[in-house]
């Protein structure tokens, strides 16, 4: 474990996960301040290039979070995202960015607690991995 403070970029969908993060905030649930959040209309909006770009800019980890499968506001955005992000993870892993640095999680608007736990786990794991080379 290093004392390195990882920087995490989070892409959260407007309808579920962003509201979930909001709930964590309004419920005063504590989670590590290492995450910077970008609100997107849907997890399907997350072009894998955005994730690649985030790693280029030196982020230690990237979180993409959207509605649970079946709950997408646009009915299918997260299903498409799931496929694209799965292949992206394989590619990142293959070029040497540990799969654990890229997380895809489904968080609903009611899961403030869960959001906080995911961020906390993620940051802990990133501390174990240490800074990106």
């Amino acid at each position, binding site marked *: 474990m290093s004392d390195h403070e990882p920087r995490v970029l989070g892409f959260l969908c407007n309808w579920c996960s962003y509201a979930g993060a909001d709930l964590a905030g309004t419920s005063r649930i504590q989670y590590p301040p290492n995450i910077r959040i970008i609100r997107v209309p849907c997890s399907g909006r997350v072009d*894998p*290039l955005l994730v*690649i*770009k985030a790693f*280029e800019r030196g982020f230690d980890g990237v979180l993409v979070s959207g509605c649970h*499968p*079946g709950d997408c506001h646009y009915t*299918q955005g997260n*299903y*498409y995202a*799931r*496929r*694209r*992000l*799965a*292949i*992206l993870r*394989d*590619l990142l*892993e*293959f*070029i*040497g*960015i*540990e799969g654990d640095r890229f997380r895809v999680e489904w968080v609903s608007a009611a899961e403030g607690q869960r959001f906080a736990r995911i961020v906390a786990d993620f940051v802990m794991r990133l501390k174990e991995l240490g800074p990106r*080379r």
Partner: protein
Amino acid sequence: MEEIRAKAIELLRSGEVKCFIGYERASDGLTARPFFAYSADDAGRLIFDRTCAHNLARYLPDMRGQRVAILVKPCDSRSVNVLIQEGQVNREEVYVVGVVCDGVYKASWGQPSQELEARCLYCSRRVPVVYDHLIGQPPASEPQTPASIPEVEALERRSAKERWEFWRSHFARCIRCNACRQICPACYCPQCFSDQLDPLWTGIRIGLPQNWVWNVGRALHLAGRCADCGGCERACPMGIPLAALNRKLAGRVKELFGFEAGLDPRAPFPFATFKKEEVL
């Protein structure tokens, strides 16, 4: 060779096609280069042998609106299907002349190479997947594909850190000449993400980490679309092992989605569809 010329003469004389896209001997007298035959006279210059490595499907989108014939090896034929699937080529406009192929030689300037390209060693097809006319005798059975690709597997066995160093050192040498893109049949985008200024995906500077976005981004765009024709790696002046990236992703797309690029032009593209129940 004679059979190809005869077919080209027949197609051009009858007016069935305006142009026959094939190969001719290059000026070094050893290698081959793409050749566009517009008349029966031209057709006498056509050749086909183990030096004909190029994937001619690259030229098809530019020929839209005219009837053309094209000579394809099995790998190239998959690119033709990819272009049809993606609406870049009208099947009716193209007369596909397929050749039975058992491998092409590595490109070599100045001296004849007798060594097969790496991809040919584990290629699983001898017969093109799409053709109107077939040249050569199909073998009794298609060759067995090895379960894994040695250079991909060797990388997978290394640690993430080692893989990072490996690719970093390669990508650092990329001069962003775009040869890999220009030669690729699947890279027909009128504006490539790497040419966009707003947003500026790939920074202007030629170096890391900017190159990294280009090389990784392009690999990603070819997932499920690359026919493994070897064009990009052959064209790369810096000798960057681009094929390993493409093969890795092709393998995963097959494992996860049961899809192989260019086998069926009517199949839905794996990233434009989904299964609700899949676990990824």
